[in-house]
């Protein structure tokens, strides 16, 4: 950058165009002005354009009845509900598929990541093949594959695959028996609560006893026993008040039971299988990041492989794993918006799709939808920064 000659400047104070503080203020003011002008033009154009199309701005449309049905809803919904309600329905469907997807992807991803590190050659290679195949194929293609190539070509309800005449799989979805809780079943839920409290108490007691006497206690097995045993006992005592509603073929489709629509299944499978491949790589890298010397030192102290993993390797690997793992969770939540492509009624499909088409309120709807995703992303990354700060290794 060529500078103009500034021999006339006094030594104590530079000429304003050479003063870095002045320059920086001027530069920032110009930048703000430019951005402000840019937004002014956009807003101006938008208002003119919307006026011309006869669209009233504002969020009043949210109170109008929607007039369209939605394939699947976790809350009560029909055509008479408002557009505001469609937002809620879509949001809940997004949350549902993201939540289920995160659980499946985590379980699968950790298993495959550990398998990838297995000393067994075949297991390790099979895991590698899974990872390399799944993560290098676009997610949308995988969703299409499960939906159009697998689920859509399943036989109709009359010829559906069934397992013990209780679980049915057809092109209408997966039907499973649903538990029906009759009166008196509150005892079972009560027992479950008691079991959870007991398990926490036992874990506390075991830790205290271990600290004072050194004796170890199989907390895990006992906890599982309590968690399963107490509700079962309550179930027997209260006279078995839970019946099971089996799906049954009535006319052209099944009635009763729980129905998982094929759109949800395809989306869930694709999201979990795809994300699991990335999680597996993260887990592998996290475990490899713990230096070999750490487990050697633990072995030299006489720790067996299992406690070495639990006490030394996993706590250190988790620090490496958790930040990228959360960003995978975020990706999964954002990718769930691909639901639109196969018609699973998530937030983007219902709200940014159908509602936008019907009302034309593009600005409001796009802003609301983006705000939802932004809120999720920003709150999780804030949480992550807090976690990282808390868990960072203390060093000089």
């Amino acid at each position, binding site marked *: 950058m060529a500078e103009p000659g500034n021999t006339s400047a006094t030594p104590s104070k530079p000429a304003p165009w050479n003063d870095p503080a002045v320059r920086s203020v001027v530069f920032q003011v110009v930048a703000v002005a430019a951005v402000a002008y840019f937004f002014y033009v956009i807003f101006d154009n938008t208002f003119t354009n919307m006026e011309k199309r006869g669209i009233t701005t504002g969020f009043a449309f949210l109170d109008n009845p929607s007039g369209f049905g939605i394939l699947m809803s976790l809350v009560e919904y029909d055509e008479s509900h408002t557009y505001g309600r469609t937002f809620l329905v879509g949001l809940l469907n997004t949350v549902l598929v993201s939540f289920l997807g995160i659980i499946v992807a985590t379980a699968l991803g950790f298993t495959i990541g550990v398998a990838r590190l297995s000393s067994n050659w075949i297991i390790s290679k099979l895991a590698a093949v899974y990872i390399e195949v799944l993560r290098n194929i676009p997610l949308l293609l995988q969703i299409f594959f499960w939906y159009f190539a697998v689920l859509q070509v399943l036989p109709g309800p009359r010829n559906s695959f069934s397992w013990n005449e209780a679980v049915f799989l057809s092109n209408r979805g997966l039907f499973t028996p649903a538990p029906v809780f009759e009166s008196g079943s509150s005892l079972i839920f009560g027992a479950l609560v008691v079991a959870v409290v007991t398990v926490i108490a036992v874990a506390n007691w075991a830790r205290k006893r271990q600290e004072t006497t050194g004796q170890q206690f199989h907390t895990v097995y006992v906890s599982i026993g309590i968690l399963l045993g107490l509700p079962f006992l309550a179930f027997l005592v209260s006279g078995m008040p839970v019946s099971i509603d089996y799906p049954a073929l009535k006319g052209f489709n099944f009635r009763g039971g729980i129905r998982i629509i094929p759109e949800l299944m395809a989306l869930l499978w694709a999201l979990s299988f795809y994300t699991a491949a990335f999680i597996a790589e993260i887990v592998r890298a996290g475990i490899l990041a713990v230096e070999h010397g750490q487990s050697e030192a633990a*072995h030299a102290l006489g*720790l067996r492989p299992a406690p070495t993993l639990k006490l030394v390797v996993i706590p250190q690997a988790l620090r490496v794993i958790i930040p990228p793992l959360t960003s995978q969770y975020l990706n999964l939540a954002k990718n769930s918006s691909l639901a639109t492509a196969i018609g699973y009624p998530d937030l983007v499909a219902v709200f940014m799709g159908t509602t936008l088409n019907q009302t034309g309120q593009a600005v409001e709807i796009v802003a609301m939808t983006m705000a939802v995703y932004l809120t999720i992303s920003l709150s999780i990354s804030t949480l992550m920064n807090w976690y990282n700060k808390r868990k960072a290794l203390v060093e000089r």
Partner: protein
Amino acid sequence: MSETQANVQSAPDVSTLAVEIKDMHKWYGEFHVLKDINLEVKQGERIVICGPSGSGKSTLIRCINRLEEHQQGQIMVQGIELTDDLKKIDEIRREVGMCFQHFNLFPHLTVLENCTLALIWVRKMPKVQAEEIAMNYLERVKIPDQAKKFPGQLSGGQQQRVAIARSLCMSPKIMLFDEPTSALDPEMIKEVLDVMVELAHEGMTMLCVTHEMGFAKMVADRVIFMDVRQIVEENEPNEFFNNPQHDRTKLFLSQILDH
């Protein structure tokens, strides 16, 4: 498997050798890394192992607590033979402590937790008692005031002293040192060597891989020189330094002592 109380130092059985290695060979894949190793270490003996890098010193002492496995020959530690048997490996690792070149402290645990970890999970000791023992050894290595800090907050010399205390907490009968001072700045070497000398004077059986010849002269009962992945010669320190037998030894000594 007898559960000895960790804080009661049971007198070593003098009749059994601490370490006995017979005709031992080891390969990494096709690579012959240890050839025909024969070594006997009596209870309470202090052995220094030296030699040029790549001569197999570290591999040798890592075989003694089975961080490496050997393919041929026999290794007996406190009368127990090292095989694939997990129980025997457990037993031997309780008898043998080890200090590493890079300390290998657990960075996610405090100094005190580093020391009590094995006491609690291997010796199954109450936490209070384990902490008492750990503090005792931290005092002996002169850093009790650092107990609540994390390893990353300590200097190299302090970290290595924590590592020594961590091993001593398990009251081992044998201590292995794998170049304990070679990752340290010069001014920190002394503080670690002081601790090791003190340990030697207390009668601990020690095998040290080190280039600290001053340490070797002061405390070693025997010096072992390794080269080309074999034991070339062994002798008591005076003889070893003043009257080396083999040309390789002379060459090595001239290289490390001449400057």
